[in-house]
Every structure is written in structure tokens, then in C-alpha cells.
């Protein structure tokens, strides 16, 4: 049940973040989506053994999150969801690949360690960039952006409708579970009760959909779900797109960390 409370809180937080009005929030949603996708794509195109090459990508996250006034700490907390899987699978890397890549002083660094480290960094960066996109864009703009990049309209419509009613249903499930727990004497939901509980909610769901359909028809719905006008692309958007994508591609091919490191070592 605390699952539900936590999820509602998450959604609410995301919604509040996307209501802000910073320069990042004002960037065209399609542009933001494309930049995020390029970011993720470039990151996962790296090999397994050069975690240091990934570090410069953190510029995007630090700069965008501070310009957009989104708390990085909170994003980190939200991204914790993705970590168990990555750690669960990634932890096998140092176990199965123990060939030494190089030494730092007298400490051997194995390929396995490198690949685990790389996996971890990639995961954190990709997940946070995704959350950053949503926190600066909001559900309505996201739906529009997804349609603009070519996904079927009904898919975008379904995302919007599902999102709209998630909170309503979570509330219903909460109420049902509370009612159950008040009479369940500390036991969980048994298999038998599950059918009744969830089945009842399902029936109410289907009835509700009929009412919503009526509401739509009464306001003129005849099969084509209409939405409003689309925001235009302006100079700022183009600059945003150009700057970030060229930066990502540049960092992809030039090992920035190494260049800087060489400079420093060269100094000494």
C-alpha cells in the first residue's frame, strides 16, 4: 500500500516540476525529446571499458537540471528504482572477467571492474536524463512530442488517458485495500480474495469507461480525439538542439577526459 502512496507522490512531484517556467521548460518539447534521445543513444554507443570517456556527458545533466531548477538529489532518489537490476546483472562482470586492464599504482583494475563501472555510469546518466526530460516537459507536451516524432496518434492518446486516470485508480485500489485490511486481521491478500477485490475494481473500471465514453460523445466526440495547437520552433530551440547534439557527438569521438588529463600530466 505504501507503493501507491509513493507512486502518487512521484507523479505529483513530476507534475509540479513540469509546471515551472524556466528557459528549459520553454524549449520546444520535440526538441527536448530529440536531444534526450541523442544523449542516450550516444552514451550507450560507448564500449564497455572506458568509463572515463563518459564523464563529460555529465555537463548536460548538471547544466540542464540547474537551469531548470530541478533538484538533482531528488532525481537521484527516483533513479534508485533502476539500480537493483543494473547492479544485480552488472555485479557478475567483475566476477566473470578478471583480466587485468591496467594498474593504478599497485592496484589492479580488471576489465570486469571497468565494465561494471561503465554500466553503472551509463545507467545513471540515461535514467536521469529521461527523468529530466519528463520533469521539464509534462504529460501534455510529451504526448504531443511523441506524436510529432511519428508514433501513432492512438498511442499518444492512450498515454494521456491512462495517465489521467492512474491517480483515480490508485485511490480506488487504496480504498479497497484499506477496507480489506481492516477486516483481514493482519494477513495479506489471499489468492481467493484477490479475485474478488481486483475483479470488483475491474467491473467498476469497465462501467466508468462507459460513462467517460458518454461524456465524450455528449461533447461531440466522433472517433477522432482532438487536441490543441502545437507550439512552434524558434531560434532558442534550434540553438539548444544544435549546441547539445554537436557537443554529444564531439565528446563521443574525442576523449575529452584523456585530453584534459594529458594536459595536466604534461604540465607536470
Amino acid at each position, binding site marked *: 500500500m505504501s507503493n501507491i502512496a509513493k507512486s502518487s507522490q512521484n507523479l505529483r512531484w513530476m507534475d509540479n516540476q513540469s509546471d515551472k517556467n524556466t528557459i528549459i521548460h520553454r524549449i520546444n518539447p520535440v526538441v527536448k525529446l530529440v536531444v534526450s534521445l541523442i544523449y542516450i543513444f550516444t552514451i550507450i554507443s560507448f564500449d564497455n571499458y572506458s568509463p572515463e*570517456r563518459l564523464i563529460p556527458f555529465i555537463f548536460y545533466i548538471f547544466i540542464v537540471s540547474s537551469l531548470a531548477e530541478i533538484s538533482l538529489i531528488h532525481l537521484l532518489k527516483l533513479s534508485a528504482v533502476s539500480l537493483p537490476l543494473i547492479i544485480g546483472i552488472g555485479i557478475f562482470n567483475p566476477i566473470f572477467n578478471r*583480466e587485468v586492464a591496467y594498474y593504478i599504482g599497485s592496484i589492479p583494475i580488471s576489465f570486469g571492474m571497468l565494465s561494471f563501472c561503465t554500466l553503472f555510469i551509463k545507467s545513471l546518466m540515461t535514467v536521469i536524463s529521461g527523468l529530466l526530460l519528463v520533469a521539464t516537459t509534462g504529460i501534455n507536451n510529451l504526448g504531443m512530442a511523441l506524436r510529432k516524432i511519428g508514433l501513432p496518434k492512438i498511442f499518444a492518446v492512450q498515454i494521456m488517458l491512462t495517465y489521467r486516470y492512474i491517480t483515480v485508480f490508485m485511490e480506488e485500489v487504496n480504498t479497497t485495500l484499506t477496507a480489506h485490511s481492516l477486516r483481514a486481521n493482519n494477513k495479506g491478500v489471499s489468492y481467493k480474495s*484477490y479475485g474478488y477485490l481486483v475483479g470488483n475494481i475491474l467491473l467498476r473500471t469497465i462501467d466508468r469507461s462507459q460513462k467517460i465514453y458518454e461524456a465524450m460523445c455528449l461533447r461531440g466526440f466522433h472517433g477522432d480525439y482532438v487536441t490543441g495547437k502545437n507550439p512552434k520552433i524558434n531560434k532558442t530551440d534550434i540553438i539548444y538542439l544544435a549546441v547539445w547534439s554537436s557537443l554529444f557527438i564531439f565528446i563521443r569521438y574525442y576523449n575529452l577526459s584523456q585530453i584534459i588529463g594529458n594536459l595536466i600530466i604534461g604540465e607536470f
Partner: protein
Amino acid sequence: MHMADALMSPAVGTALWGSSAVAMAYSSKKVQSGLDDNKIPLMGVMGAFVFAAQMINFTIPMTGSSGHIGGGLLLSIILGPYAAFITMASILAIQALFFADGGLLALGANIINLGFFTCFIAYPYIFKPMMKNKFDEKNLFKASLTASIIGLQMGAFAVVIETLISGKTELPFWNFLLLMQPIHLAIGVVEGLVTAAVVTFVWKNRPEIISSSFENNRLSGVSIKSVASMIMIMAILTGGFVSWFASSNPDGLEWSMFKTSGQEELEADGHVYEKSASLQEKTAVLPDYGFKNTEGSNIGTSVSGIIGGGITFVVASALGFGINQYKKKNKTDNKAA
């Protein structure tokens, strides 16, 4: 299991997104050409329902653990395969976007793994045929269980293959397989039981819901031809992208087959490691996909890379911090003014 972006290679991610897009386009056409306008709000609330229902865990007797519904099969039974597929896709999209459960580039893969196999294979070719003879509680139970288990096994297997081809984990194929399949067997059993429980309830209380969707779905069946062509398209896309990436991007791809000679290995940890290492060599699937890559990355200069990386990180965080402070100062200035 939701695939993460970091576990995929660009090739695999793109290929699966392509396949997903094809399946979604086809399904949208089918849904829109259907007769019922009222499907649209139904799909939406069913999506929200499955989302919320996934938060109800029930206790599995004798194991002390809990399980919850996945949704693909239930959705297919109520909505039909095409609408169910799109609904699953929208649920997965919201999970990826708002809950960091599954990556954005991996969304395509997740839609295939968790949506395609249940809606387009398990439901039409396992569940429906098993229910053809008689629609009663026992049949429902058996069909639901079988369809869920097989659907989830296929999805889990797909995850293993995708991860293998992406090459981001050093986990050998068999080990990963033996990890994934049993877990998803258990999940499949849970899904089957749960779906059966819910559908039985609905069927007993409002049978017209089940029978009407069965009627509709019979008319808009999933033809073997369409499923086969979708699979073929996916295979072509996967093969195409993967080989294109391999040929055009030699640096950093996990295709290198060189094992360095003359490099020391860390001291083996004893019998267990030796045994598993030899077992791994004997049973290695795709033994050519060696992960011990030294050609691609420049190891020798990596120490300077680490130093440079550290400096970069510091600069980046300083920049971010600076922007934060600047904004805060602006706000207090404005307040004071």
C-alpha cells in the same frame, strides 16, 4: 523484466524500436478500423487499472513471497490483442517516463518483450484455442496459466538474447538464461493464477463482458500471416542494424575477438572459479563474442583519462552549482526589489 538503456547497444535498441513501431502502426490501424468508438476510453481506463492493480501484491502460499499482475493476458481477454498491445505499450511508456522503470531507448524492446509475446502469440495461439471447446472455470484456469507461462518465458528469453547481442554484460549466455527463465517461470505462474482469478470473477458476475469481447475478437482475429510477417520484419531489422553498426563503427563495439596474450590474470579464487571458467568455455554460445576487448580502447593512456575525467566532473558540478547560486541570488534580489 524491464530492459534498461545501459544494457542495450544502439543497434539492438534501434532495431527493437523499429519492430515496436511496426507492430504499433499495424495495431493502431486495426483498432481504428474496428467498429467500437468506445474502445478508446476503455483502453485508457484499463491501462490505468492494470497500472494500479500492479500495486496489489498478494501472498503466495508456502513461499512467503508476493506477486502481482503483469496485465498483457488480461488486457487481451478484455480488449482483444490489438487494443491490448497498444494499452500495454502506453503502460510501459508511462513506467519508463515517470517511474524510471525501463529506459527510453529500451522502451521499444520492452514493448516487444512484454507486449508482443503476450498479446500476439500467447493470447491468440495458446489461450484462445484452449478455450475454444468449453468456456468454464477449469479451462480458464488451465488456459490462463499456460498462456501466461509461455508468454513470459518468451519475453524473458528475448531479454537474454537482446542482452547477449548488446554485449554490455560479461554474464555468459547460459548463466544468464538459467537466471532469467526460472524467475520468469514463477512470475508466469503468478500471472496466470491472477488472470484466471480475475477473469473468473468477471465471467461469473457479468458474463456478457467476456462473451462480447470474445465475439468481437473472433471477428478480428490475429492471422498467422501478420504475426509471421511482424517477426520477419523484426529479424530483418535486427540483423540489418546490428551488421550496419558493426561495419561502420569498429571502435568500441563488442565484436572484437582478441584475447590479449601476455596479460596477467587476477589470481583465481579457487576451484569454483576454475570450474565455472572451463564450463563457460565448453558451453559458450557464440564463442566468437569475446568480451575481453583490448583493441578498441586505449588502455595505456587510461590513467590520464581518469585524471581528466575527475577534473571534468569537478568543473561540471561547479558550473551547475554556480548556475544554482546565480538563480537563487536573482530570486532574492527580485524579492527584495
